[in-house]
């Protein structure tokens, strides 16, 4: 049964599972082997698909009702007595309604609470700005001790959830509404927290993307190769914090031009994190950010919104072409060295 607005999860494709479903499945598997895992939600069990976990381990699942601040405080308390809580709700509520609890209860005490924030960005299109979240990466980045991961698809979400178990402190995993197309066709491509995954090689320019941007960037890279003969590198920067500085520095020295793509405000998210590295490196690099330009988005299907804000393959390709026209200071010198 399909509900296009995304208020309940549905199967995108019987054969390939969506991010939320995979999350629920992996969580259930983890808790089969690890008795410390518990699940929590704020009345969004079905919407965040943690309902799979709920079905299999009802004694370790707790619905806290529509009370996100309490949800995070309770998760902190459970972590204090030795459990590993996975707390799911929409990104807007996890990162803003309960921001203080996340920071003061969970991050300050460095507790192993794993926050699974769904419906991030504008993936909840029709619901409008009150249910969108284009600020969570900026907020979560600023909390010490927090690890921030934005998986590109369901498969990567599974990897992230498993990896989160091995991180001693808090983790924030940000996913969409579950209709996102799959990107990886297998799980063992070498996911490692804090290490960008080079999904397309190139030398003319680097696109650093996360979440839905990864698939779109790779599509754009193919487009640009066929139409413009360009060689574009694409990095899946799934871990926003700690960010993979080495990969960014390589992109600076090897391609000199970087475009970031994120379903987030251009202020404070992936783009800003990359800009920090570029600026601190002291090296010249042409740079641009694709994201929401400090605005609240319109209502609409997410795919339409991505196109409108230039975050789809065509939008990215256009931004790449624009970025390639940016001049460096050194470009004045065209005399042959003889």
């Amino acid at each position, binding site marked *: 049964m399909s509900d296009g607005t995304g208020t309940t999860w549905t199967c995108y494709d019987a054969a390939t599972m969506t991010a939320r479903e995979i999350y629920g499945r992996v969580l259930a598997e983890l808790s089969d082997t690890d008795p410390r895992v518990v699940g929590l939600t704020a009345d969004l069990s079905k919407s965040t698909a943690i309902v799979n976990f709920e079905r299999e381990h009802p004694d370790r699942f*707790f619905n*806290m009702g529509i009370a996100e*601040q309490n949800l995070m405080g309770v998760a902190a*308390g459970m972590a*204090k*007595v030795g459990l590993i809580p996975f707390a799911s709700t929409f990104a807007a509520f996890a990162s803003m309604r309960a921001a203080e609890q996340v920071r003061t*209860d969970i991050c300050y005490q*460095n507790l192993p609470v794993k926050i699974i924030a769904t419906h991030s960005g504008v993936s909840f299109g029709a619901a409008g700005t009150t249910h969108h979240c284009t600020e969570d990466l900026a907020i979560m980045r600023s909390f010490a001790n927090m690890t921030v991961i934005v998986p590109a698809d369901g498969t990567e979400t599974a990897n992230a959830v498993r990896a989160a178990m091995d991180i001693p402190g808090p983790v924030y995993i940000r996913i969409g509404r579950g209709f996102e197309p799959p990107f990886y066709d297998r799980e063992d491509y070498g996911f490692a927290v804090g290490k960008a995954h080079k999904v397309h090689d190139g030398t003319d320019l680097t696109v650093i993307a996360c979440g839905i941007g990864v698939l779109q960037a790779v599509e754009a890279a193919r487009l640009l190769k066929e139409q413009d003969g360009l060689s574009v590198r694409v990095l899946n920067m799934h871990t926003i914090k700690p960010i993979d500085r080495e990969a960014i520095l390589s992109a600076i020295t090897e391609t000199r031009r970087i475009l970031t793509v994120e379903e987030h405000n251009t202020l404070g998210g992936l783009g800003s994190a990359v800009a920090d590295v570029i600026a601190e490196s002291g090296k010249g690099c042409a740079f641009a950010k694709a994201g929401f330009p400090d605005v609240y988005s319109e209502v609409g299907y997410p795919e339409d919104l991505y196109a409108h804000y230039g975050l789809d393959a065509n939008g990215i390709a256009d931004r790449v072409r624009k970025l390639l026209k940016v001049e460096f200071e050194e470009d004045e010198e065209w005399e042959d060295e003889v």
Partner: protein
Amino acid sequence: MPLSTEERKELYGRAKGLRKDIVTVTSESGGAHIGGGLSALDILVLLYFKYLNIDPENPSWEERDRFVLSKGHAAIAYVPVLARRGYFSFDELKTFNKFGSPFGMHPDSRRIRGCDASTGSLGHGLPMAVGMALGARVLGKSFRTFCLLGDGECNEGVVWEALMAAAHYKLTRLVPIIDRNGLMIDGPTETVMSLEPLEEKLAAFGFDVLSVDGHDLDAVGGAIEHAIAAGDPSAAGETVGSGGKPVCIVANTTKGKGIDFMEGEVPWHYGSIDAELRIKALESIDRMYEAIGGLA
């Protein structure tokens, strides 16, 4: 009567000594939330010197009872209690408020031995206590979780979220205690943002509410014992006593209790004590305990 004659003497003695400790630390540190510390002290004494199942030699003991000081600014009372209970030396409190010290206005669980939760921002403690109690159930452990809140703190909505959840999940091994001293920073609670009828609200939220004099050790002890009984499972594994209802204790207290010039005074929410005031304070404490009968 929950307390034997010997116990009463001992506990009142402890409380008197700790009131003086609070004066000492406040005067040496440059300032503290002394009013709210003094109103909470008797509750802390009963918990830490009689009712909490803890082991200062083993602060990480997994079966221990948990205590969350949700009104974290009462750290001025809390850390001397922990010291006298044996978690660390009282001398360490000389560093209170100083750079690099683990001891300050609010307790830091990462650095203070025996402290179960870092608190300070009002409203955060009770949800964590709910989490601990729920966690105990998942782990199949029988420890109890006590949580001390301020009354002004109950303005925070998240406190009521936590109370609602505690009742919903029948957390009878969770005991919230409210230090009802009637005052907050900008004035009496009923003037700033009224809480009354508080007991009715708590009852409506699904609690068995006990309202006692927060400085009468017998009364507070009786309430705690009632709450403990509510959390004991019957042979059949069900809770008895309140019929699955958790207990909430409203301790009616006086802010600044024991130091006459502070009692009931709004400004003494936070204050510093110079040498002159220190003498006066200590004398006042002596007078308080002389007036309590049956301790000699």
